């Protein structure tokens, strides 16, 4: 392999990038946009859920329960309704998200030391939010039950029992459960995977469409020089994107960076090389920009978004899908970035993930070189 030829290819690609300021601007701007979106605007934390109450009991006990809901930071009281139709309406029109229904016999049953039913009705079509939201009433009613129990024991036996069990949760690495700390490191992987797809997936296909590829393959240039030469400038852009992302994460979003910065960038470099090579592989096989762009979307961006563990925990997925995630490089990268940022771990703990990324990069780059054919047809 000849370095001078490789350099000629790299330099030409760099000139091409420079002469297309729009694409370059987007390549740098889209990640920033995504970071800002995820950092500020997008959150899965659900607070202030609007709710309505249909209190058919109207007793001090039921009012106590309602008051606890109103006092919770998770709920935002929107009013009381008088009948089922009104409740339905509120939920159908999304004015309320949850409806608390207290049946008439509520207080009577409580006093009679029996189980007193109540209902929390949620709009399940947004199962996302529904699952989160339905966790909150459980917490409220558990505390309510505890108080009821203590009061009844005291009344009944004159004893004032102290609690037996005190569970103290201690959250490591992210004590405030700041979801930003969780999302921002993960989004870095998605961004970098995406940029790779957008930039490199079109490059060789474009040359085929324009006719310059035919010229190129009539020269002594080797496939390895072609692939690596094209990869270099985009690697530069990718690392620049990563630097921007890290800076924003640390200084704008105050995500703690507890591990080694050098290691972080080294890992980023390996990941980038792999994903860029993937884009080039797609480009050289597709030979058409339209096709290459679609394939790049499915195979780099979507897996990075859905299957990397960035937003959806892998542990919750069916086993078959979990197996698939083992070949998604973004999965390892997300895990590593989160580890380096929040847990401050290094190569000693993360070496298996790093190993996969290295192997992935080598295999895909090799494939890209292998499939770049210096023949027509």
């Amino acid at each position, binding site marked *: 392999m000849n370095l001078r030829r490789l350099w000629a290819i790299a330099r030409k690609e760099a000139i091409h990038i420079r002469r*297309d300021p729009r*694409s370059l601007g*987007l390549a740098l701007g*889209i990640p920033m946009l995504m970071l800002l979106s995820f950092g500020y*605007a*997008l959150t899965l*934390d*659900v*607070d202030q859920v609007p709710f309505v109450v249909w209190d058919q009991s109207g007793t001090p006990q039921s009012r106590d329960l309602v008051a606890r809901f109103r006092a919770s930071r998770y709920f935002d009281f929107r009013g009381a309704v008088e009948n089922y139709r009104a409740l339905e309406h509120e*939920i*159908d029109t999304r004015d309320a998200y949850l409806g608390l229904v207290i049946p008439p016999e509520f207080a009577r049953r409580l*006093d*009679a*030391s*029996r*189980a*007193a*039913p109540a*209902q*929390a009705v*949620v*709009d*399940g*079509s947004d199962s*996302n939010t*529904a699952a*989160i939201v339905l966790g*909150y*009433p459980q917490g409220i009613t*558990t505390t*309510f039950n*505890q108080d009821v*129990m203590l009061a*009844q024991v005291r009344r009944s036996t004159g004893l004032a029992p102290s*609690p*037996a*069990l005190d569970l*103290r*949760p201690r*959250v*490591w*690495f*992210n004590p405030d*459960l700041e979801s930003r*700390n*969780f999302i921002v490191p993960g989004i870095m992987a998605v961004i970098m995977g995406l940029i790779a797809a*957008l930039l490199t997936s*079109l490059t060789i296909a*474009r040359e085929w469409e324009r006719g310059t590829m035919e010229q190129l393959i009539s020269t002594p240039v080797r496939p390895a020089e072609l692939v690596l030469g094209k990869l270099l400038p985009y690697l530069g852009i990718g690392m620049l994107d990563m630097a921007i992302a890290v800076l924003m994460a640390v200084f704008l979003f105050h995500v703690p960076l507890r591990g080694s910065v050098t290691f972080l960038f080294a890992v980023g470099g390996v990941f980038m090389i792999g994903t860029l090579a993937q884009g080039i592989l797609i480009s050289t096989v597709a030979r*058409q*920009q339209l*096709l290459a762009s*679609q394939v790049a979307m499915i195979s780099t961006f979507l897996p990075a978004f*859905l*299957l990397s563990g960035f937003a*959806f925990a892998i*542990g919750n*997925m069916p086993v078959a*899908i979990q197996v698939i995630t083992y070949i998604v490089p973004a999965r390892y990268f997300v895990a590593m970035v989160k*580890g380096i940022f929040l847990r401050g771990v290094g190569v000693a703990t993360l070496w298996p993930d790093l190993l996969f990324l290295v192997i992935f990069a080598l295999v895909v780059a090799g494939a890209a070189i292998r499939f770049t054919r210096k023949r027509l047809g």
Partner: protein
Amino acid sequence: MWERILTVLRKEFRSVLRDPRMRMVIFGLPVVQTLIFGYAVSLDVRHVRLGVLDRDQTPASRALVARFTGSSYFDAVAYTQDEAVARRLIDASDAAAILQINSGYEACLRGGRTAAVQLIVDGSDSNTARFVVNYASVIAATYNNQLVLDRALRQAGRIVPIGSVDLQSRAWFNADLESRNFYVPGIIANLVMLVSLMLTSMAIVKEKEAGTIEQIMVTPIRPVEFILGKCAPFAVIGFLNVGLVALVGLFWFSIPLRGSFALLLFGTAFFLLSTLGIGLFISTVSQTQQQAMMTTFFFFFPAMLFSGFIFPIANMPRVIQWLSFADPLRYYLVIIRGIFLKGIGLQLLWPQFAALLVIGVIVMTFAVKRFHKTL
């Protein structure tokens, strides 16, 4: 006029679908995406990996551990008495939480005092962490109630009946809170948008690059006819995608389709008006397919993120919420989910239809005007 449109349309269909790989991507992609989404996406948290650090090793501590492992929420993955081991579990992400019971637990309980137990949670996945803390609190509180009751029983010498609230949760429209019922209909929206946006903008720019647009424009064809003929195939592909995903959703995932499919197609048509318009607009501001692709993405990504597809709009900052009113995907999502899961009809969905119409007409007009100008 129709004949000219049809000619352009036929040519476009042929050129887009000529490559068998392209055919596979256009029709296979929706299916693949639906399957992956349907299976992968779930925010429900179950089978949380729990490490047990039991330094007490008494019947009481084991009973407590059993409470956790007996629930469907926690799976015990490791038992140890070594704190360093426990720490490593969390560092290496082998466990999401550690239940730490110090020695003297049982003694504490017997002595009528309060026994403190620690739950160490890996906060780097704040989503899971929040669930873990909540579940654990509920398990602990319930167990605590029972322990206190037992205590009182022993002290008072008789059974004390206790009333308690039994809260039943009901999720309307999606009783099992099946995530995929939520996401799969949403995928239709995303696919339609992505395909119609990206393919339209790139296909038109491809002709610009090849110079064939000039060739077409010197024929008697009118720009409007060209646009219609050019965009129509992608609209058709969009409709086919809707059908495909709906089929996969209905028969593979058993997602209910409670409303009218015809209304869904109707809504899709309104939606396509906007997306094709945006695609057209992008093609007028892009010189190369690369630019078209990246600009498409620049529009598509925020449109997807702020549409309520995954992240609830209600939680977004005010400014973004206002911006999302201009996002056609937002309205289409409501229509889709409404038709699939709630079975509602035009009476309740008409605001969405109206919004789509308004946005669509504005965007299309603007795009066509620009198209004329840049020829």
